[in-house]
């Protein structure tokens, strides 16, 4: 899970500032002042000096405007130029993460270091056991030669004083598919042939150096400048992000200027129906098992890393797809904006072109703040559609399974297995499935531990998100009885 930290706050403050300026139509005039205002001379700098701090802020803004940091041609290009052009920018690679090289502190190259606990003992098992002869002892203390060390960790295990410490590189360590590593300058680089957009590196980096490329300006302009018809489709996980009843959250979203607001739970009901039918068909055909397909980071994982698993992944479209189709059916020519705590949905929308834009839960909160909308003061919206409680439950791990169960005539005999969170360990397990099928014929896979509610761009801490989501699910159960 992500521990709340200042890098998260910096990102949210930037989003609010950008949106406030755009709302007041003064973005181009004032955007270049944001780094100066947020990192004034009077503060003690976070990095080496105030100028570096400001440069970091500048590049973080560039990412939030939708650019790759590597798009920079001329260092003197002001943010206002990027802001002006950002609306016409077309995303070409479908890569929604970018590394702010100024912010990347170039963590250690070698993960092992000798601490001052080293006693310079006679045994010197660290030195004796090092397969690369990387350890030498001067002045009674061991030293690791960075040119020779290959990070095997034997010295750490061998030291009887526990004097050798492991120094992690948080982004690399968090990446389940080894898609991020240092380039020749020591700065992290993402390999998009491997990246599954799970967002784990982004939340892991304590320098906030890995940024998502946001679409907030495009969304703002679609609503308020171009006056296009816009439909917000709201993921169930969003209903857990604010401590108010879900009707109030939906009303607050409408107050941002959308022409219509729909719940992705509507589509989730269709996903559950189709997926149940598909599963029954596959079982009848003699398949060993089937996995879910609604988590876009998981489907990208299967595509890029576990090809053998692909025949077992459900072909049922995700709730976002069903809901977006429904939105266009109901509202004709419109821009569909998916709102959820997920980074990989941007990639899914880029691939299937079902949603025009994706807004994260953090960005939604920033929109509310910039527009002065207080969720607690909104009058609850009346639902004009029917969704099942299970459909809202999709947002928490185990929710898809419960929804499928609810569709079955004999739910008691239904056996399922949950992969709660994609990690190196669970990837190993998933890789075994095509060879040694899992014990249960239905496998739910969620890239985020706990489910969407704990997504990389969520607002509420997981325990609060879960509790509030449960209430949103319960609201519907009681309605159904009445």
């Amino acid at each position: 899970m992500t521990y709340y930290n200042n890098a998260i706050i910096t990102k949210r403050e930037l989003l609010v500032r950008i949106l406030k300026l755009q709302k007041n139509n003064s973005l181009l005039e004032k955007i270049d002042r944001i780094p100066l205002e947020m990192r004034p001379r009077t503060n003690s700098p976070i990095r080496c000096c105030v100028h570096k701090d400001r440069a970091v802020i500048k590049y973080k803004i560039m990412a939030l405007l939708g650019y790759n940091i590597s798009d920079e041609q001329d260092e003197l290009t002001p943010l206002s130029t990027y802001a002006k052009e950002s609306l016409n920018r077309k995303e070409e690679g479908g890569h929604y993460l970018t590394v702010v090289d100024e912010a990347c502190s170039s963590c250690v190259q070698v993960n092992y270091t000798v601490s001052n606990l080293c006693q310079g003992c006679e045994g010197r098992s660290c030195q004796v056991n090092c397969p690369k002869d990387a350890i030498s002892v001067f002045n009674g203390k061991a030293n690791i030669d960075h040119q020779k060390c290959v990070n095997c960790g034997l010295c750490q295990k061998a030291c009887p004083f526990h004097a050798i410490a492991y120094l992690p590189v948080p982004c690399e360590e968090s990446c389940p598919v080894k898609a991020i590593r240092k380039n020749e300058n020591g700065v992290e680089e993402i390999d998009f042939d491997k990246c599954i957009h799970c967002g784990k590196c982004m939340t892991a980096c304590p320098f906030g150096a890995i940024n998502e490329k946001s679409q907030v300006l495009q969304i703002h302009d679609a609503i308020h400048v171009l006056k296009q018809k816009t439909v917000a489709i709201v993921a169930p996980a969003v209903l857990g992000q604010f401590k108010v009843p879900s009707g109030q959250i939906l009303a607050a979203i409408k107050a941002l200027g959308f022409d219509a607001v729909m719940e992705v739970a509507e589509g989730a009901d269709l996903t559950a129906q189709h997926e149940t039918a598909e599963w029954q068909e596959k079982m009848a055909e003699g398949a060993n098992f089937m996995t879910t397909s609604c988590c876009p980071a998981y489907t990208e994982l299967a595509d890029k890393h576990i090809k053998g698993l692909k025949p077992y992944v459900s072909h049922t479209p995700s709730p976002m797809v069903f809901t977006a189709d429904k939105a266009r059916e109901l509202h004709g020519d419109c821009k569909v904006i998916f709102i959820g705590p997920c980074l990989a949905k941007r990639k899914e929308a880029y691939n299937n072109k079902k949603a025009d834009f994706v807004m994260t839960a953090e960005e939604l909160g920033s929109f509310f703040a910039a527009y002065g909308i207080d969720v607690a003061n909104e009058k609850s919206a009346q639902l004009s559609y029917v969704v099942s409680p299970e459909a809202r439950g999709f947002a928490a791990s185990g929710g898809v399974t419960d929804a499928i169960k609810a569709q079955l005539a004999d739910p008691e005999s239904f056996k399922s297995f949950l992969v709660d969170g994609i990690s190196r360990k669970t990837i190993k397990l998933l890789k075994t499935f095509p060879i040694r099928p899992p014990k249960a014929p239905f496998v739910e896979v969620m890239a985020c531990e706990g489910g969407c509610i704990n997504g990389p761009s969520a607002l509420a801490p997981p325990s609060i998100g879960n509790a509030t989501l449960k209430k949103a699910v319960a609201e519907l159960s009681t309605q159904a009885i009445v």
Partner: protein
Amino acid sequence: MTKTNHTIKICCGTMCYIMGGAELHLIREHLPESLQDQVKVEGISCLGLCEKEGDSQHPYVLINNEVMPKASIQKIIQYIQNLK
């Protein structure tokens, strides 16, 4: 031991909520045992302080009606412990 009662009111205005206020709702899990039954935690609607004092003092809480800017769980606990 004298029983003191403290009330922590967490601002639930949007700006406070997104700038760290959401985390403050977890304070019960962090309170030392000695304070558990002496502290009342509630959410309140926007205090309007954000507009007065500029943008960077979020999140706000009221502890026994005293304003604390830039509140954190540890700061709140320390403040209450110092009151005793």
